C-alpha cells in the first residue's frame, strides 16, 4: 500500500471508532472487563502455583545416622546426600540438639528426661533433615538414603507426602483449567462483541464493495479498528489489574505476614504484555474475520 492508503487506513479506523461512539465504547468496555477478569484469575492461579510449590518445598525426609559413623565422617555424608538428585539441602541435627528439641516438646515434663544429658545415656541418634527440591522427589530420595552407607534408618511418611502432593496437584490443575476456560471465554466473548459491531455495519461494507473497494481496502481499517479497541481495552484491564494486585499484596502481607505471594515485578510487567498482545490479536482477528463474511457482495 502506498502512503496515501496508509493515511486512509488510519484515518478511517479512527473516524469509525469516533463516529460509532456507542459501539466503540461497548466493545472497549467488554474487552477491558473480560481481560481484567482473565488477569485476576491468572494472578490468583499463578500465586496458587507459587504457594503450592512453597508448601511442597517444606516436605523433608529425615535420615538417622548409623551410630558407628563418627562426627568427622558426617561432613562427608552430608556432601553425598546433597549430591542426590532432588535434594535441596541437608541439615545436620546432632543427637544433643535432638535431645534439646525433645525437652522443649516435653515442656514442664522435661524432668522425665533428666539424666539423659550424659552422652552415654542419650538414646537419640544423629540425623539429617533433608530438604527437597520438590515433594515429588520424596520417595526417590528416601530410597537412595536407605541404600546409603552410614544411614541407619530413614523416616519418611509417603502417605503424608502423597496427600500433600494430591492437594497441591489439584490446586495446580484447577488453576490451569480455570485459566484455560477463562481464556477461551475471553476470546469468545470479545470476538463475539466485535462481530456484533461489524454486523451492525454490514450494509456499509456492502456499499463499499459496490463502489469498487477491494476486500483489502475495506478490511484494513477494520483490522486496525479492532486492534485499537483490543489494545485500549487491554490497557484499561492491565491498569486495573496492576492497581488491584498492588492493593491485594499490601492488604494480604499486612494481614498474613508469612504468606507466600509473588512480588509485583516482573509478574505485572509480563501480565501487561500478555494482555496487550491478547487484546491486539483478538481485536484485530475478530474484526477482520467478522468483516470477511460481509465482503461477498
Amino acid at each position, binding site marked *: 500500500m*502506498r502512503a*496515501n*492508503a496508509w*493515511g*486512509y487506513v488510519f484515518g478511517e479506523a479512527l473516524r*469509525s471508532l469516533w*463516529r*460509532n461512539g456507542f459501539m466503540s465504547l461497548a466493545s472497549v468496555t467488554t474487552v477491558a472487563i473480560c481481560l481484567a477478569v482473565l488477569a485476576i484469575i491468572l494472578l490468583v492461579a499463578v500465586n496458587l502455583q507459587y504457594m503450592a510449590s512453597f508448601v511442597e518445598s517444606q516436605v523433608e525426609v529425615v535420615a538417622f545416622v548409623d551410630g558407628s559413623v563418627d562426627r568427622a565422617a558426617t561432613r562427608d555424608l552430608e556432601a553425598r546426600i546433597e549430591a542426590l538428585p532432588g535434594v535441596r539441602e541437608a541439615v545436620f541435627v546432632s543427637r544433643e540438639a535432638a535431645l534439646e528439641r525433645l525437652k522443649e516438646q516435653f515442656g514442664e515434663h522435661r524432668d522425665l528426661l533428666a539424666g539423659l544429658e550424659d552422652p552415654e545415656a542419650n538414646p537419640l541418634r544423629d540425623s539429617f533433615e533433608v530438604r527437597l527440591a520438590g515433594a515429588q522427589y520424596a520417595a526417590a530420595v528416601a530410597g537412595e538414603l536407605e541404600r546409603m552407607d552410614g544411614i541407619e534408618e530413614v523416616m519418611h511418611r509417603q502417605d503424608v507426602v502423597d496427600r500433600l502432593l494430591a492437594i497441591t496437584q489439584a490446586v495446580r490443575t484447577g488453576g490451569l483449567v480455570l485459566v484455560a476456560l477463562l481464556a477461551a471465554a475471553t476470546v469468545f466473548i470479545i470476538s463475539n462483541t466485535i462481530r456484533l459491531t461489524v454486523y451492525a455495519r454490514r450494509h*456499509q461494507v456492502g*456499499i*463499499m*464493495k*459496490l*463502489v*469498487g*473497494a*477491494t*476486500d483489502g*481496502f475495506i478490511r484494513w481499517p477494520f483490522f486496525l479498528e479492532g486492534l485499537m479497541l483490543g489494545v485500549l481495552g487491554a490497557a484499561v484491564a492491565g491498569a486495573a489489574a496492576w492497581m488491584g494486585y498492588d492493593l491485594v499484596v499490601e492488604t494480604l502481607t499486612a494481614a498474613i505476614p508469612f504468606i507466600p505471594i509473588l512480588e509485583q515485578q516482573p509478574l505485572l510487567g509480563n501480565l501487561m504484555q500478555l494482555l496487550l498482545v491478547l487484546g491486539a490479536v483478538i481485536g484485530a482477528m475478530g474484526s477482520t474475520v467478522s468483516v470477511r463474511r460481509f465482503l*461477498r*457482495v
Partner: protein
Amino acid sequence: MIEFINVSKVYGETVALLDVNCYIDASELVFLVGPSGAGKSTFTRLIYREEVPTRGAVVVDGVNVARMRRREVPFLRRKIGVVFQDFKLLPDKTVFENVAFAMLVTGASRREINRRVPEVLEMVGLADKHKAYPHQLSGGEQQRAAVARAIVNEPRILLADEPTGNLDPDTAWGIMELLLEINRLGTTMVIATHAQQIVDALGRRVIALRDGQIVRDQLQGVYHAR
C-alpha cells in the same frame, strides 16, 4: 461495450429477466423504461455484478462478468459509475467523504480528491452541503449526492437507476443535462427511468422491459409505444 446474451434472472419464484438479448455500444445512451417490477434494476445490477445471471452471459468491455473471478470484480466496478435507486450512501460519512470514497478506492491522491470532489458537488448543486451526513439531506439532495459519486471518477460506463425520481422537474433537467454532457464526452450510459417527459424530449435509444422481457428497442424512441 455491454452485451446481454440469452440472459435470464430468477429470484426464487420470481422471473425478473427472461431471455434478454441486447447490445449497447460504447458512448451510447440508452433509456431503460417499463412498469414497476419489469426488471430494470435487475438489468443494471447484472452489469456491475451485484447479481449474477441465472442463465446466459453479460459481457462488459469484452469480459463475461458472470464468470469473472471475485478478485476482479472491484476493478470492473471502478470502470462503472452507478446511481443506485436507493442511493446507497454511507450513513456515517459526510457528502464529501461519500463522493471522495469512490475516488479513494481507485487509489487517487488527496490532492486530486480535494480538487475533484468540490467540482463535482458544484455540478450537482450540493456545494453547500458537503459537510452534511446523508440523514441530514432532503431526498433530492441524497439523490444528487449519489449522482455525484457515480460521476466523480469519470467512468467509462454510467448506470443510473431512476436518477431523477426525487427531483423537481427543473433540478431533474439540470441533472439530465449533466449526464448528457458526460455522455457526449464518451461515457456509455444506461438510465432506468420513469421520467416520460425527459425520455420523450430527448428522443434517444429506448429499451422497454415488461415482465422481464424486452418488448421494444427503439433507436430514436419515446417513453410509450405508439
